[in-house]
């Protein structure tokens, strides 16, 4: 298994990366199974919730409001968190966030660190930076542990190892934990992870977490999880460092009554995840006595500035859009070349890259709208995809080399054609004549050259009929007169 490239600055274009995974039959089977299971559970629990649409409306409104007033809510969070004994740091980009965290770890003389699953830390590529500085990183979420020990990359926002099956986990654990005769029973494998990590929880004094929500009113941080590894990291170490995107803030504690309801149902198809932890700064005698929050911008404030694209930041990372997406269900997450895959990744990643990388992602969608239909905070992902496609095309307009791309040329030509009925009729005639060269005796086209081959590689195309509709109408009009 070759390791997927998850750095958007060097990842291959989506269609190229997708081609590799489309041939990986085991991965596709694993992804299809996992997404089917989560989708079915989610559908049941959403159906039983009579006020689901009202919850979605409220959740979307709260998130949009928090973003519209982001500056004041962040300052309020900072004030409350500081009053409660926390230290708030601000990181403009990934490099600064890594530097801040590294400096804090050095102050702790840390040689080891335990981590709760955080996609934001993968976004800033924290682990390689820590390892390079001689700090050993221990991922404690079961899925993250599987990936770390297997030298693999996350393929899903909520269940990062969903592309790996039990047989593969058994093989990884047996090899890396030195366990002979390990069975592939998930119960046994989970017990192996428990034993493997128990000592780390009790001995490593520094932990890193992400945040699901920041509460401005109280300065609290909320983390939702299932396994208890989060609670271990939040309770046992001496020092806790939380890395959070600036968009994670909610105005008030009471807003959690909405977001926790929609998050668990959307993410894992549960009424509530097994453990939700909420803490505020430092509590004397209970949990870490040193607490740092690193607020990460890394492109987010620029997303905020664009009116259509801003809704991207409403995301609460439930991954319901991934599970329902017919593209993601074929490719899994690695094809997206970013820790954020699926529909939300297709809009988030290129924007975090300030549209300088990952420009093929906004096109990695059939715009079917299934993502928007399930989104608990009503992000109109198709609308944002189209807005980003326009941004990419606008870049191309300024690059003369791109003007000769067949797709670009075709679009410009079509624009001229559609500008008048006379030109359109001429184009209809020309394409009928042109395509007749490729049309078989059965009236169908089986093989086309150039871009057309990308259609005929798997589908036939019916030849263009002799008479267009408008010709028929005109002829009929004449008859009737």
């Amino acid at each position, binding site marked *: 298994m070759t390791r997927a490239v998850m750095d958007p600055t060097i990842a291959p274009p989506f269609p190229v990366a997708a081609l590799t995974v489309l041939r990986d039959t085991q991965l596709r089977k*694993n992804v299809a199974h996992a997404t089917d299971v989560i989708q079915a559970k989610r559908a049941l629990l959403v159906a039983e919730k*009579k*006020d689901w649409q*009202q919850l979605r*409306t*409220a959740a979307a*409104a*709260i998130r949009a*409001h928090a*973003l*519209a*007033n*982001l*500056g004041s809510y962040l300052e309020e969070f900072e004030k409350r968190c500081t009053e409660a004994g926390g230290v708030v*740091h*601000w990181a403009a980009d990934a490099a*600064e966030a890594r530097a801040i965290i590294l400096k804090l770890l050095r102050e702790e003389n840390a040689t080891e660190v335990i981590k709760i699953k955080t996609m934001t830390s993968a976004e800033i590529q924290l682990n390689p930076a820590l390892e390079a500085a001689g700090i050993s990183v221990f991922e*404690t979420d079961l*899925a993250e542990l*599987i990936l770390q020990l297997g030298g693999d990359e996350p393929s899903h926002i909520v*269940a990062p*190892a969903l592309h790996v*099956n*039990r047989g593969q*986990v058994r093989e990884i654990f047996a090899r890396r934990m030195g366990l002979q005769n390990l069975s592939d029973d*998930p*119960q046994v*494998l*989970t017990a192996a*992870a*428990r034993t493997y*990590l128990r000592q780390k*929880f*009790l001995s490593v004094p520094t932990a890193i977490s992400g945040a699901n929500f920041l*509460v401005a*009113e*109280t300065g*609290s941080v909320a983390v939702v999880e299932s396994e208890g*590894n989060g*609670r271990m990291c939040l*309770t046992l170490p001496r020092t806790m460092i939380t890395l959070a995107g600036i968009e994670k803030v909610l105005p008030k*504690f009471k807003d959690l*009554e*909405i977001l*926790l*309801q929609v998050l668990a149902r959307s993410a894992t198809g549960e*009424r*509530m995840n*097994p*453990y*939700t*932890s*909420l803490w505020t*700064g430092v*509590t004397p*005698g209970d*949990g870490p006595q040193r607490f740092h929050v690193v607020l990460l911008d890394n492109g987010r404030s620029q997303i*905020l*500035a664009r*009116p259509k694209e801003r809704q991207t930041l409403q995301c609460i990372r439930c991954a319901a859009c991934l599970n329902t997406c017919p593209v993601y269900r074929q490719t899994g997450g690695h094809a997206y070349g970013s820790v954020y895959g699926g529909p939300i990744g297709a809009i988030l990643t290129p924007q975090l890259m300030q549209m300088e990388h990952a420009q093929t992602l906004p096109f990695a969608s059939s715009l079917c709208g299934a993502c928007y239909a399930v989104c608990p905070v009503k992000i109109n992902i198709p609308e944002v995809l189209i807005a980003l496609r326009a941004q990419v095309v606008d870049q191309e307009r300024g690059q003369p080399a791109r003007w000769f791309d067949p797709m670009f040329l075709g679009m410009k030509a079509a624009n001229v054609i559609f500008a008048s009925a006379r030109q359109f009729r001429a184009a209809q005639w020309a394409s009928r004549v042109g395509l007749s060269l490729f049309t078989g005796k059965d009236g169908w086209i089986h093989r086309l050259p150039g871009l057309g081959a990308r259609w005929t590689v798997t589908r036939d195309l019916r030849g263009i009929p002799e008479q267009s509709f408008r010709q028929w109408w005109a002829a009929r009009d004449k008859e009737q007169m």
Partner: protein
Amino acid sequence: MTTSSSSRRTILDRIGAATALPAAKNSYDELPRDYAKFGELDSDACIHLMTERLREYGADVAQSTPELLATVIAEQVQQSGRQRFVVPPEIPAEWMPAGFEWKVDHELRATDIEKCDGVITGAFAGIADSGTIVLHHSNTEGRRIITLLPDWHLCILNASQLVETLPEYFQRCTQPPLLATYISGPSATADIEMTRIQGVHGPRFLSLILVRDDR
């Protein structure tokens, strides 16, 4: 904070510029909140639902009256086959039956708590709809660590503390808690092929005694 103070200004300035349009601002109090605020079940139905939900999660649920509580706890402790227990500093003495080892948590060390094979606590609230036990970590609910390391958590919840829906719990919080843990079943994972496995790092066994103080 010296390293990031200039970034603080930069980020807040960027945000300020991005959100400058007054049209985008809307008042917090006017946000739509048309979802269900209250449940529909009476006390018995609520207890039934809580019991059903917790059993789905693989937790044990028993009922008791306030008078019989000490006896019910003693039975459960006896049947658990466990010997050494940790408890929060302010739980009633009758919750600790004789014949077992009881460690009262006055800042016990993690290694000592780790040696206990059970923990008994109270709770702040219960939420029937999701089968959730809410801890605000008062002196009857204990520090976070004591309900984390032992393998069995026995929680005592009064029926009067049980609500049906999550918003009803939030209504009971007159002040936002600064520390809270919401527990919905024993620790679990579905990371391997979406197969739910109970018991990863938190307690693998969860029991609840519902005390009928409501009649």
